[in-house]
């Protein structure tokens, strides 16, 4: 397949875009990457994603697919090599359920934790720590959520592997340590050092700067 058949619209810092990149890497698919400026969205982006006007958008043979989870499932169902999902319907359902859990339950309090302080921040911290415990249990006996290889849940959760250390540095909280969540801690290292992820991460310094600015902006809004 020529790279021109597959285009990915994204921004360098988006964890949602990275999910798609990791999935494309697992399947060894060539693609053309287009960096968007979200303050000045291209006509192509608005044409391909008129409902949400967001990245990532994957365009395959001229047809757009939006929403990162949906894009990853599309990639899995179109290319049969190197499976991202288990074959068994029940295990597949479990993977989809956990993915939704990460999106709906885990992400909001983590974001709230990062963008607040004081009591709000502490409450958010308690919330997501409970949810991290659920994920810790899911990793029992496995290196990745997908088993021996990176799978759907690993891809969905993956950005946590590089964002959590950044949150820890900026907020001075301990979130995922070897003592509190040994399996998740090990998972983070394994994920970050894997072939498909290692060379496909946003530059740490720029991300650190960006996240600091985000936290400052949220905290100054409350004053």
């Amino acid at each position, binding site marked *: 397949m020529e790279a021109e058949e597959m285009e990915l619209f994204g921004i360098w810092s988006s964890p949602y875009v990275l999910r798609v990149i990791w999935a494309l890497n697992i399947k060894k698919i060539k693609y053309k990457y287009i960096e968007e400026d979200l303050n000045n969205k291209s006509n192509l982006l608005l044409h391909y994603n008129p*409902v949400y006007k967001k990245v990532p958008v994957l365009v395959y043979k001229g047809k757009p697919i939006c929403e990162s989870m*949906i894009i990853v499932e599309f990639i899995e169902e179109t290319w049969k090599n190197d499976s991202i999902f288990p074959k068994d319907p*029940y295990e597949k*359902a479990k993977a989809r*359920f956990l993915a*939704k859990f990460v999106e709906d339950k885990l992400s909001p309090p983590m974001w709230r934790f990062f963008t607040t302080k004081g009591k709000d921040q502490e409450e958010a911290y308690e919330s997501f720590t409970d949810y991290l415990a*659920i994920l810790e249990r899911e990793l029992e006996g496995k290196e990745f959520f997908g088993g021996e290889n990176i799978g759907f849940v690993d891809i969905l959760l993956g950005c946590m592997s590089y964002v959590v250390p950044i949150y820890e540095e900026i907020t001075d909280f301990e979130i995922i340590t070897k003592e509190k969540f040994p399996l998740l801690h090990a998972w983070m290292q394994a994920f970050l050092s894997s072939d498909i992820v290692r060379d496909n991460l946003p530059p740490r310094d720029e991300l650190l700067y960006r996240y600091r600015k985000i936290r400052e902006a949220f905290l100054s809004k409350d004053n």
Partner: protein
Amino acid sequence: MGEGELKLLGTWGSPFAIRVRIVLNQKEVKYEYFEEDLTNKSELLLKYNPIHKKIPVLVHNGRSVCESLVILQYIDEAWSKSGSSVIPTDPYERAMARFWAAYIDDKVIQALLGILKATTEEEKTYKISETMSVMELLEEAFEKCSKGKTFFGGDTIGFLDVTLGSYLTWLKAAEKLSELILLDETKFPKLVEWTEQFLSTDCVKEIMPEVEKAEEFITKTLKPRWAAASSK
């Protein structure tokens, strides 16, 4: 794959449970149904959905599947030989179905609740116009997905039909209680036609609750609950 013991925990009015029941009906799959009281959750519910403690929960041979859209896809895969496919088979069409299902679940409840909970005329008007925008998009989505056929899923009811269709009782209840027409056939002719076809299909008719029951529930249970919550 599809044999064995099957249970479904749900409530009569939940769109999420309704859609699962319609699909099980359509595939002629037998199951034991448990009506849950969400103010007094059963041991079964707490056991099979410990994380969210919500319905619907499908329990197949003792293993639970939660989240309605996950359940629908599971049923399709586990009972692939029974009846027609719930979700399209083409990967691009599947992506479209998943996209619009997520959109529907994100927007429709919020839209209906917005109208029912509005305390001023101004707020109500705003919420109605928001709902109209959602319906415009769904009218377009119907055109694209149905490709001239009766349902979003084509000749037979599919993923998007049950996802959107499961809200119809509540949509009609909101129309009556708020004295407005949302399913306006001059604005959304295809959706209105689809509504009639959907509601008259056998596997749907047996499951969809009566609009009067929904109206009563909103008036006698939900509205007082909302009023109590906002006065705190």
